[in-house]
């Protein structure tokens, strides 16, 4: 990873990811985002979000831009307009609200079947929030009720959290960094493999001419990469002769 990170830094690519924070009203989305921000930027009073708000915070390796969407029924039709931009989704569930678990499931199903989401391998992080409540369901029960086992084509993870104390949030964010980094590094590895091929080709040209001068033990202190180059050279030579 370190190599890619350095390469990314060298290429000037900052790992900024857009995350959508979704969930029903009163599930604790804003509170969770507030908790994830640095302690000096946190606010005390959380009010129901109108429309949406944009929050930014950084972890050790990623810089998050979170679209904190309002969960109220009348604003939920706004969600789908942001699906395209989102590279990850945080779905917050009020574990104590058994009655509206079906509504959460309905909204999740609508989300997963949306054309902007359906065919993307977008990571989804579920926060089963309000674990401190007396009648809260466990995260296992929540994932059962939401039928999360049916999500086969996307990486997902569920965490039991308490946004008031911050319990479980870090676990979720740590998980989210994994798939996001893979997602991000996939892009980088395409670039770097293209670069490597170019280097290989360039390195081959002098080698053809230098064939007779290569010492027999020079491959000993060279890595497997050079062995592959060596094999390539032999193939080329056979072809030439």
């Amino acid at each position, binding site marked *: 990873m370190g190599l890619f990170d350095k390469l990314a830094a060298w290429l000037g690519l900052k790992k900024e990811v857009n995350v959508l924070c979704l969930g*029903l*009203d*009163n599930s604790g989305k804003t509170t969770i985002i507030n908790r994830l921000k640095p302690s000096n930027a946190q606010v005390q009073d959380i009010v129901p979000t109108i429309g949406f708000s944009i929050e930014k915070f950084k972890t050790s390796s990623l810089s998050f831009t979170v679209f904190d969407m309002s969960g109220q*029924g*009348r604003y*939920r*039709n706004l969600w789908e307009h942001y699906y395209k931009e989102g590279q990850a989704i945080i779905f917050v569930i009020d574990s104590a*609200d*058994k*009655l*509206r*678990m*079906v*509504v959460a499931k*309905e*909204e999740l199903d*609508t989300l997963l079947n949306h054309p902007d989401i359906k065919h993307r391998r977008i990571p989804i992080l579920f926060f089963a929030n309000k674990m401190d409540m007396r*009648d809260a369901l466990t995260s296992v029960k929540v994932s059962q*009720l939401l039928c999360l086992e049916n999500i086969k084509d996307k990486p997902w993870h569920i965490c039991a959290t308490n946004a008031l104390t911050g319990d479980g949030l870090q676990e979720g964010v740590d998980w989210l960094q994994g798939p996001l980094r893979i997602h991000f590094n996939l892009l980088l590895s395409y670039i770097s493999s293209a670069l490597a091929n170019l280097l290989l080709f360039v390195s081959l040209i002098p080698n053809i001419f230098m064939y007779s001068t290569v010492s027999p033990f020079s491959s000993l202190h060279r890595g497997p990469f050079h062995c592959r180059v060596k094999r390539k050279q032999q193939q080329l030579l056979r072809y030439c002769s």
Partner: protein
Amino acid sequence: MSSAESSGDGGKWLDAHYDPVAGIYSFSSCLDLADLSGDGENRLVVGDLGSGSSGMKLKVYRGTALMSESTLLDLPAGLVAFFMDLHEPRIPAVAVASGPCIYVYKNLRPYFKFTLPGLEINTLEQDVWQQVRDGQIDPLTLKEMLESIRKKADVPLSVRSLNFLSLELHEMDEFVELHKHQPIKRQTVITCIGTLKKNMADEDGVSCLVIGTESGEVFILDPEAFIILSKMSLPAVPTIMDVTGQFDVEFRITAVCRNGNIYILRRESDKPKYCIELSSHAVGLVRVGKNVVVGCTDETLQGFTQKGKKLWKTVLAAPITTMASMDLPTRGFQAVLVGLSNCEVQLYRDKNLLSTIKTPDVVTSICFGRYGREDGTLIVTTKGGGLMVKILKRTATFDDRDSAPGPPLAQSVRLNVPKKTKLYVDQTLRERESGLAMHRAFQMDLSRLRLAAAKAYVKALESSLTPMSASLAEPLKMNAVVQGLGPSFKLTLNVQNTAACRPIMNLAISFLYDESLYRMRNPYMRIPLLVPGLIYPVETFVECTSDKGISDIIKVFVLHEGRSSPLLTAHINMPVSEGLTLN
């Protein structure tokens, strides 16, 4: 939690909760939704009738769980949540009507008890009990006297006297001893309860209580002082009430009464302003906008304007058990939920069925509104004591006539009827004045027409002009087919003997035609013996000699040898010869 599709409602509702053994025995009038703790989450308040004689309870549900339960002293007749003051935080009180009293709960604790004023007491009855107290008469005499009072008095007896009359001889002494020192009271009983905003139309405005009683009266109570602000009387006992408006401005009380009529009371008078006479008793009353929708025992749903004009009527599949209003102001949607005894809840907008929800048991009460934090929640309790909560999907839409069979839409489009002309008006006047003469003239002409038709028919039969033979001796049938484009046509005559078993002999066919137009190969043909039932094709060729593209009729006669009048006649309309025009 099964999938929403299984309930057959077209996937419009989410099954949030179903507890078949919740043990709620209640009616729609004893159900209400209110934010009882001021935290933005609505609770369900239920006045549970228990077994009908015991176990009456005030139950409060939060989400899927029972939050609190307290015992009620008497059977609840109605339950409403209302704001009685302007104090912060805005927490509504719950009023439970049972017997002659209203029990008001605040923060789910008993807060106030209001008792309706007593009714007028029969003076004779009072005198009799006074004499009993003084020891002047014994229980047997008391019984006789009370019975005579019951028969002729205008003012009915009190409950105590009625109880006394129902007793056996040996129980009387004890009863009299127990009760004779208390004064007689006659109490009425509350039959229905509603709320009426005092002077603000806000959702959380202070509301007055509106009470209908067994004595046929409607009281409006002040929410803070619990004094009677207004008293109105109805010709019968109200059973269901709908109240709208504001007490200080203008209000309207629509009361369904036990005599099968609906009375509409307004602010300015203490007597009903309008009356709707129903064909059968009402089971439910729901206001939709300015109209009221009434469900009747004859399995119909009827719509009326607020002045009592009937708008529509629709017949339902099963008897109605309960009704409730479905109001979604955020979507501008208003409809009526009707619980049927065939385990269905149907949703009607005007007379159109929008959607049907199947329930596992017969529905006894329906309540729609905000429950928890969800605006479109439907709460249903069933006959077996079950509680069911359904949530309307955010994406659900209701289309008119999506499932209701009925007249096509074009039928309700207004026709552009032209204005009445002077001629039309004159005609109408004339019709009104001399209707009798016109009818006679018409009947005369009709008879003449019939006579003319009959004459023509007889003539046709007599001269055998028909393709069916009328004579019984030679029952024949013939039809003719013309084939070809011209100038040469093939004429086929299918002759059939329709007699049961007698063959016909000695027949011939002859043609009559315009000789300048057609030429026929053999204009006279003999027909062989006709066996009954078989069809004999007789063929001949006709040639059109004209090249002007005109056609004519060829008459075919079936003749019997030795007789001049034909048995059958057929007229063949010859087609235009197209072969000539092509050449």
